[in-house]
């Protein structure tokens, strides 16, 4: 393993006490003692997450980014067991062949082989669920930060304080042309911290009232603009998928507006993001959501898929691309005098295949 500070190659026996014998500096992790990653590998993961320190990210995104190393470690741990079972089966087979009648031996071999094959299949078939908790990810990060200092770009959890009621007079006179409404405060906090609102000239709010400073002022500002394009951004979850319907039916939001566009995520994106699912919180049966198929509704009863499963840069680029494409299509439709050009099928607006073709996009 290389020392994360002086880059010297250090053998395991030289690094007792997690300290480099050359520079005397400490390191946080020891993969030989069960840690998920080395310090350098963890740093590399944080660099990818923050795109070389230029992007803000949250610990839920770290949790998803750690999925692959976590599964790799699990696989390595099980590898020995599988190889041992195969070898043991082979030895017993040879011994049994000499001692048992051939019919009985054949039956035992078939039975044993079938059980072993099923065991191996289970080990190799990755679970669709995220294999580590957010707390586990945060613990790893805390250990790393204790040695290396604060990680660049890490976001604190959004402060869900009560609305201050302070009004900014600017929101009473001016307005914007587009808004992103999200289901979770942490999505809003992530987008704001990365200046997405400034880059894309759009207001960003969560349906539950984040950010709390002048939330009502911002919402009223948006409601005043009849030409406002509203983009809905949410997890593939029961509550997230309900958001679009809430926004177009609630008088507090944009009831009756035809310029509300649902960007996703949707249950149909789940297969591409297997390994990032989490279990749905509710244990009771929920009313099926309108506009979703029976299969989608069944999936939503039991599962959730967070937007934070997408790496920060991928998520930002994808939303930016969709908003730009919408603006361009609207402009072209306007030039053609095509009034229907403003209408977009939600299916057009988040093709998971376009998010990233390589698995590396998904951490």
């Amino acid at each position, binding site marked *: 393993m290389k020392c994360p500070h002086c880059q010297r190659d250090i053998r395991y026996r030289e690094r007792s006490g997690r300290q480099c014998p050359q520079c005397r500096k400490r390191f946080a992790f020891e993969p030989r003692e069960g840690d998920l990653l080395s310090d350098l590998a963890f740093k590399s993961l944080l660099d990818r997450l923050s795109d070389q320190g*230029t992007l803000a990210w949250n610990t839920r995104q770290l949790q998803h980014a750690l999925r692959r190393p976590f599964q790799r470690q699990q696989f390595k741990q099980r590898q020995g067991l599988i190889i041992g079972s195969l070898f043991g089966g082979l030895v017993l087979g040879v011994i049994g062949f000499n001692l048992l009648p051939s019919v009985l031996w054949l039956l035992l071999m078939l039975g044993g082989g079938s059980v072993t094959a099923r065991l191996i299949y289970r080990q190799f078939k990755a679970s669709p669920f995220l294999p580590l908790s957010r707390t586990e990810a945060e613990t790893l990060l805390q250990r790393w930060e204790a040695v290396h200092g604060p990680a660049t770009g890490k976001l604190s959890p959004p402060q869900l304080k009560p609305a201050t009621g302070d009004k900014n007079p600017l929101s009473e006179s001016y307005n914007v042309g587009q808004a992103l409404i999200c289901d979770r405060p942490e999505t809003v906090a992530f987008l704001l911290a990365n200046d997405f609102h400034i880059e894309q000239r759009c207001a960003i709010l969560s349906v539950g009232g984040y950010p709390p400073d002048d939330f009502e002022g911002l919402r009223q500002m948006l409601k005043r603009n009849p030409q406002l394009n509203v983009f809905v951004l949410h997890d593939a979850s029961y509550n997230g998928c309900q958001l679009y319907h809430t926004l177009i039916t609630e008088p507090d939001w944009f009831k009756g507006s035809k310029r509300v566009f649902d960007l996703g995520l949707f249950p149909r994106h789940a297969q591409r993001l297997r390994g990032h699912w989490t279990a749905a919180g509710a244990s009771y049966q929920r009313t099926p959501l309108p506009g979703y198929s029976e299969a989608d509704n069944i999936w939503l009863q039991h599962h959730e898929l967070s937007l934070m499963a997408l790496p920060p*840069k991928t998520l930002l680029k994808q939303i930016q691309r969709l908003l730009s494409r919408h603006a361009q299509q609207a402009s072209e439709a306007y030039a053609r005098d095509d009034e229907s050009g403003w209408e977009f099928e939600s299916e057009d607006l988040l093709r998971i295949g376009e998010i990233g073709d390589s698995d590396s996009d998904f951490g």
Partner: protein
Amino acid sequence: MILANTRTSPRQATGRGLRGSIGLPPDLMQRWQARHPLTDGSDTTPELQHDSFACWIGQQAISTASDWLGILKREALDQVSGAFALAWRPAPDTLWLYRDAPGERSLFYAPVSGGLIFSSDLRDLIPMLPRQLNLQALARYLSYAYLPGRETLLQGVYQLLPGEALRWQHGQLQRQLFWELPQTSAQQLSERQWRDHLRDSLEQAVWRRYGGEPVHASLSGGVDSSLVVALLARLSDEPVQTWSLAFGKAHRHELPFSERVALHCGSQHRVLQIQPRDIRQQLDTVMAQLGNPIGDPLTVPNALLFAQVARESPILFNGEGGDPNFGGPKNIPMLLATLYDDPRTRADRYLKVYRKAYGDLPQLLTPAAWQALDLAALQAELDPFLIDDSQLMAGLMRLNTVFKGAHHILYKVNALSAPLGLQPASPLFDREVSALAASMPAELRLREATEKHILKQAVADLLPASILQRPKSGMQVPVEAWLQPRGPLHRWARQRILKGLTRYPYFDPRWLRQLMDWELPGFLPRHGAKVWLLLSLESWLRTYLPEN
């Protein structure tokens, strides 16, 4: 295409560029006279040099030297509208230099050995000077893609500010502003009254620049150029000759809109197609014309259009000025940053929102250059415009007019058209129009999310509703597509940036390589715009600082 001087100046224009010196020691005087024999020396320098276009005082046109001398002696320059640069020598030991209020003309000067040399063209001055790059100005260029303020990229060389008078007397320099953009007026006028005032001002501004038929105008299809064409169409008996730029069918363009306006106004419309090879061939010629570099991708296409028009007309109208004066697209991002209580300083925010290379300076510059840079001074220049919370939007619009208007847009069109003998006519930057815009409440200019609200109201009877209400798209040169790896200009740009710029000790070669490999971090790295910014700079340095 060849950039050549094809036509003489129009009737209401006088001169094209001025230059001179005062108080030089004999050896320098000899050098200067050897280069500029007609306009130099105490015996040969005329009392007044003037370079002007469409200048008026009240209802009277100004065209002769005696007109100008009368105005100077009456100290009535603050009442003059139009484009002008003046050099007045009322006594052998005194020189006054003046630049018009909006900044339609430009004038460089440099104090040298107790004397002063000045010229409309920076190339006249540089043989007389030890040339050294001004690092602070370099950071300004990289942050804005133009140079706001007095300093140029060369140390010790300055530019007159718009509306500024500079006096040299016995080796001492004294500067004063004879005109400034007014603050928001306390006058309680109704929207209708503001609108009617504006309509009058627009008609006057176009009429004052109108030089007879046939009249030529740029027409992008946006509101600004369209309204200028519509006003010209009412003045002219013959069809207006209108021009658009396009960059190939594969790239976004505004031709459906410009054609719609041309049809509406009955103009004869032509489209100038710009190819990547035009950019490659003309970049150095164009950048050499700019004493202050401009990193705007439209610079070469503008120059090519001017060259084309100059073969047919001495004047080209444009719609420049609508965005900065009337609440164009730079304001909404700052509004959002303020609404979300962005913790950064306003100036820092503004420079980031400007989307050039301000955010890249720590990596783009070498550690030594970065250490030597006074970033706080760069931000402090913006404070007077942004400090007042209650006037934030008015301050922003004022900033856009004073900075971008004078130092980018007007400077660019003047510098590119001067060698062609072409007069750029920018009625939306007319002194009265700019002053009226600055006087009216900001909410009339940016009404809710509608940019240029009052401007659209003022010309609502002249243009189709589909033009007035169209979504903003802007003229976009496809720099991203042309400059990206495998793009038609990539190899050329890569060689010029990696070999050309690394000769100077300011740029980090690793960052430049990362840029040219299209590998800058961030979710919107804007490689194309940054490559163009640096390509323009490299080309400018070839002319103005070649020996480094």
